């Protein structure tokens, strides 16, 4: 029942000119405590070059399914387009250098994870951020 409605809403949202470009923000659960994340560290995490915060705290990452929010996040954070990211990620995975982020099936699953799980870091379109989480980094 809910799904078709959600799809309709998503479609409408995509058609609306103001929402045409996703504005991804990097978030974590309020349960993560007072952690901090710099842009450089976020880039390192999402490029698999680090698995911890700057202070050494281990964190895990969430990816959204392939789509505009994900593409926009990687473009803003790493300056790589979708094909470049797939190539980069493939090399890391197939050479055992990094484990890819956990991929949520959809935005609501990502939101659920990012509300419930401490030390999990993810990104959402700014409009999808809810009260159980905190914005760690904006990517204007």
């Amino acid at each position, binding site marked *: 029942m809910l799904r078709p409605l959600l799809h309709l809403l998503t479609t409408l949202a995509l058609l609306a000119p103001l929402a045409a470009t996703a504005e991804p923000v990097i978030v974590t659960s309020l349960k993560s405590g007072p952690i901090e994340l710099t842009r*450089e560290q976020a*880039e390192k995490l999402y490029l698999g*070059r*680090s*698995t*911890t915060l700057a202070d*050494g705290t*281990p964190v*895990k990452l*969430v990816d959204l399914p*392939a789509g505009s929010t994900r593409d926009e996040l990687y473009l803003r954070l*790493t*300056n790589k387009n*979708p*094909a*470049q990211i*797939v*190539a*980069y990620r*493939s*090399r890391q*995975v*197939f*050479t*055992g250098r990094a*484990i*890819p982020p*956990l991929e949520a099936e959809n935005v609501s699953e990502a939101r*659920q*994870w*990012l509300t*419930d*799980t401490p030390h*999990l870091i993810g990104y959402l379109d700014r409009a999808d951020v809810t009260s159980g989480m905190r914005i760690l980094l904006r990517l204007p």
Partner: protein
Amino acid sequence: MNQLLVAPLLVALVGSATAADEPARFSLSGFGTLGVVRSDKDDFHFRSSTTQSSSSPGQNFDATTDSVLGVQGTARLHDQLDATVQAVTRQTVGYDYSPRISWAYLRYRATPELTVRAGRTTTPFFMFSDSLNLNYITPWVRPPVEVYSLNPFAALDGIDLLYRIPVGTLDLEIQALYGDSHVSIPHGSASLKSAKGLKLALAGSGLTLQAGYARTDLEVHWGDYFYNYLTTVMPPNVSQNMAGNEGHAQFFSAGMQWEKDNWLAIAEYAKRKVDRYINTSHAWYITTGYRFGALTPFVTYAKQVQEAPANDATLPPALAPLMDIFNASRNNAQKTIALGLRWDVARNIAIKAQGERIYLGPDSRGIFASPSNPTDYNKPTNPVHVLSLSVDFVF
């Protein structure tokens, strides 16, 4: 029996992997290439590796040269311990497509900086050694054969240590390894014993620099009829330096990858220094390309040069020409100018086209083998043109 055991295990592992704080315990991914290649001369059948045979006419489109399929599974056994297996099928000696295990290791992340891997990993001789069959990640149809044919050993059975530390805004990765390797080549086989190597890689956001060094004991055995004939006519002290278990080899390499805005450049130099059985050669290439949206045209120049032949014994005039043929058949010296285009047609899929003009020698048939006539190796030739088309994918 293995399949019966693995299937319920997979279901159990995948089924339990839904919560975010308990990340997937088992992941399965794969990659592949479907490619065809042909040359403009029937007696020059292109090979992408010296481990391949060549028996069909060179002008026929051959789908076996570059096509490859790989599947990789990783199971997390513990926060710091995981196991990875990768199987790859592609054409090797005698048109054999049996899947080979290219990775099978246990990895222990001792600290965030230090990783230890034991089992089967890859040799570190080249910049793309650890992703040899993963063509999706490069602009080319295949890594340039001038450099990559210098060393046909891909798998390493042993142990390696990976140490990663930040250096300013860059990351330094130090890899040290020890192990053995074995490879079948047309009419023969070769092994590395007690290979020891060190590789350094410095990576930043758009630039990767790396350098490696390895030394190893080398065993080489030939079984082709021309070699067998030579062993009956050459003095014993000469033929014992044509094959055996007493060789030593050293390997040097240095490479860089650079990406800025829409430009890309890749360059690599490698040298193998061998005291007997095969020749001492060096090679290098440089590729540069530019991204126009989904299209990336690129150009490559590559060259392999022989420094010392496989066997340099001083021989009487009746035997010297025979040894010249033997040496030429073990020499892959050539140079190539290549023009290519990568098209990122969809997420995870790239289509590539590449045209090459290959100048052979001197004293070599380059990457091309002659299946029937040893004297082919001594004939002067015109440039050979090679056309390749491929589709690469990852999943």
